[in-house]
């Protein structure tokens, strides 16, 4: 039945980038695999929720069922980082998930399923620089289910904040704390030193803290 539409259980372009077997061997393994990679999970989704939805594709009377679930964890914090492996007893059950579960919601997020070569030691951890998944490293949107901003954006945010906080650490109050910006043109050679900044007395009321905050809000909006 592949003449008119493409079946949803065809292998996708998902792959384990660190797999050490060649492409044809991989395809051969996938054609028998009973393990699924599940992506785009919320960090808060539990194994029990995962079990619930994936148990709808089991065929116990054929000797199938959910063998195990391996929750993907942040390498550093050991907290869920938004992916997992679901391992069945049979290949057909994994295929059923590609047809019926992939692309539907769990915990109000659209999850994706892909056939996987099978769990190997260490694969339960995120491979991103920051410990989580690579995709969360460079993500530019705010995703409350996946820890807010992407890891890089979060780091950037922290750095910016630090810069912002340090920038005015030397601010002072009292007269002369805020620059005046220069006065009208005046004939050079008068008694005033032209290199010395002039100050206008009525500038002094401005709060120096308001501006940086506004700037940060801008940054939020842009991200």
């Amino acid at each position: 039945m592949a003449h008119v539409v493409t079946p949803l259980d065809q292998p996708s372009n998902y792959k384990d980038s660190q797999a050490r077997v060649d492409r044809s061997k991989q395809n051969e393994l996938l054609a028998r695999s009973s393990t699924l990679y599940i992506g785009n999970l919320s960090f808060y989704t539990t194994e029990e929720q995962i079990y619930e939805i994936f148990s709808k594709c089991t065929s116990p009377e054929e000797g199938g069922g959910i063998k195990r679930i391996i929750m993907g964890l942040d390498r550093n914090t050991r907290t869920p980082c938004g992916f997992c492996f679901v391992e069945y007893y049979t290949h057909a059950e994994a295929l059923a998930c590609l047809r019926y579960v992939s692309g539907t919601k769990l915990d109000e997020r659209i999850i994706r399923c892909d056939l996987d070569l099978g769990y190997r030691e260490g694969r339960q951890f995120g491979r991103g620089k920051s410990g989580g998944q690579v995709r969360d490293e460079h993500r530019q949107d705010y995703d409350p289910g996946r820890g807010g901003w992407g890891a890089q954006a979060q780091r950037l945010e922290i750095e910016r904040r630090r810069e912002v906080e340090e920038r005015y650490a030397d601010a002072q109050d009292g007269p002369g704390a805020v620059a005046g910006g220069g006065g009208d043109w005046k004939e050079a050679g008068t008694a005033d030193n032209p290199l010395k900044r002039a100050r206008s007395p009525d500038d002094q009321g401005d709060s120096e803290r308001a501006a940086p905050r506004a700037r940060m809000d801008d940054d939020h909006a842009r991200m």
Partner: protein
Amino acid sequence: MNHHGGGHRRKQYRGADDYDSHDRRRDTFDTPEQKLRKTIINLGEVDPVQELPRLASDIRAANEAATAAGGPAIPAITEGFRIGVTEQPFKIPYYAALLRLLHDPPAEAEENPPTDGSPTLGKQVLEDFWKGFQTFLDKLAWREIRLCIQFFAHCTMAGLVSSQTMFELFRSFTAVLQEFGVSHGRAMKAALSAAEGLMIAGPIMSKSGADVTEIITAISDYSESMTGSKNIVQPVVRLHEQSSTIEHADELLDSAIAALYVLKSSDFAQTADSFPQPYVEYPEFGSPPFELPSVLVPPEVIELDGLTTEAGEDAQVKKEEWPAYFVRLFDNDVTPDPTTPSGYAIRSAILDILDVFEVNRKECARLLLEYPKWTLHGTFKPRPGAPEQEPVPEKNWQLENSIIEITLGSIFLLPESTYRSIYYIALITEICKLSPQTVGPAVGKSIRKLYTLLSDGLDVEVAHRFAEWFSVHMSNFGFAWVWKEWAPDVSLSARHPKRRFVRKALEYEIRLSYFDRILKTLPEAMQTPEAQCMPEEAPGPEYDYDDPSKPYHDAAQSLLSLLRGRTKAEDVVSHLDSLKNSISETAEGNVNVSTVVRNIAVQSLLHIGNRSFSHFLNAIERYLPLLRNIASGGGAGATGGSNLEARLDILNAVANYWKRVRNMVVIVFDKLMQYQIVDPPDVVSWAFAYGGALTGAVGKSTFDSFQWDVLKGALDKANGRVTIARKKVTALRKEADDTAARAIATEGAAMEVDAEAKPDVMHASESPALTNALKAFATLTREQKAVLARTLDGFVGYLVAEGDANPTAAEVIAEKSWHNRINWNEVQWGTWETWCWFRHFCRAYSPYLRNYTQSLEEASLTKIGPSDPAVDLFKKTWNIATGQDV
């Protein structure tokens, strides 16, 4: 950094593009044959009727080009037709029209027609197509057979196929119905093939004087012989009735028969009103039509592996098909009545789309919403925004309601749906996503109608699937359901099906989400503990020994610290022994010390693994020796052995620990069976003996859906093991045969080796692996028989045991009582539910029960009391399920 991030994303994007364009590139390398095939398959992308003449001339041109280049393109053209007909059934009438056009002589040849008498292109294609049909027939590919027959029937109407030979083809299929011992699945498919073909080709047959009554009578005689089976698969239950027609549902084959009688009564005048006939616009075809060769429907081939149980019972499972009742949810002016010709045609077409496009639910959803394109003008109400049109009387149905009704009907087929229910559930989600404004209301109305049917006898298994669909659907659409309209129903009996549904639907929603999220979706009146809609608190474990004032708190704490410290299993075992001694010294009154210690041990093990499914697996995997020791009933010295009491204690400990999370009970039981700490028969015994207590069973003995979940887990586990064991034996035998064959080949290498030599005459000696596999198979079939026997025994005990009969069991199946169900209490509803689960057990496991009918009857049915209404219903249900009622 920011820049880097963007770059990375772009790179990934390009990756995806490459992937796509790779596909596209492959497309551009299509051979002429592939292109031709694709043109045919894509017929009707814009307007099928307008495209037909153009497509016909394109095909001719391609064929001429191919002929000039070496060989005509007939095979490619036929393949296009074959794929079109069997994979896009909604286009069948248009393919018949296309074939009609290809039967015309080529345009340039019209003035001087070919004198060599060579057949037209169309005729060559039809002959080739017929060969393909025979291949389908040989393989008994029923869907393809049925769709090809529809195509031939349209061709008959177009004058391309002789109506006499078409009639003979129908007769070949109705002949199947008279076969001795024909399975219902085979008979139904053969009957539907003939019935649908006759609906389409009826006009020309009745004109030519063919005896269409013969066909209709054959089908309807067959259907009447199935009355018994119909009774136990009706989705709306009437325990006091034996009728094959019921309200709110209709049987597939019976609908076809009803539609045929309607058609026949008007000499098939309504065919034109039910099926598109684009070919009638073309001039009448004058040449002699194609004579379909006569065929025989080949017998079913059952591959016997010759594996039997020790008692010689045939252990092979032959899946039996049952009459197919579809639930009706809407009135005949909203969705078409399937017992009318056009209603039948529409439902059959939609069912085919559901079936063919199961591989891609997204495409399936799109095609369903596009379905009106392929129907007669005015069949469905125009889409909102489309130009207004004069409504066609008696039609003008709602597309979305029709699709949802038929899809839900497919989920609710008993004993099981064709595909897993999650397929249809995900499909409805996709349909809703494509057109939320029009599909949403249809879904809402369906839910309300089903909810109403809960009071009118909606089968418990159907109600269960309804709750499953409801929760998964809501999970995909923000859990947005207007609960408040059901709030008044909290005053009904706690076991009224409506209240059971609400609780179950909410429980399932919580499993997919979390307690607080779901609580927020309810109106206040349904949030209170008194309303009993929600559990009193978020699901969580219930460790008996948390509270320091509870007995055995200290003992449990000491054990917990050993387990947390990963003390070796054997040390924990000896700790438990000393614990046992100290408890028996201090125990007062009638305490079963072993049970107490088992409870402490199992609950503590669950406690250290309660954080997640994986934690649980890790905990029990680490302490398997401990669990085995407990299961064998013994202290340190015990070495395995069987101890039912100990294993039931383990199951009870699990059930108590997870009493507020019932799905965890089922999950833990499943893994305990998987690790062979307990066996499926233990779990069956537990379900009947203790399963009801967990949910507050009322009355003498009632069986509820939680018990069913536990029971089903055990039955499926036992059956699944037999399936695996059988595969293993088969594989090992094949391997042995192959080895033997190779040995023969090597021996005879010098001589002429007869390739046909059958090596299996000398099975040689069995390999140790095969001997073990056969031994395992014997053990597992014994276990399979045991779970079935204990289940039957359990239901006998609940409903009809002699001398211990359940008085309510006879009461609730009386018609008078049913009509008074508004006053039923919890015991009555609970008993009614028990009857329903018994029926479901019989029909769902009937293929397994049939293998062991005799010994099961000897073991259990002998405990039944003398004839009374309950006993009669029990036996009747059993006889139908085991095929003794025909």
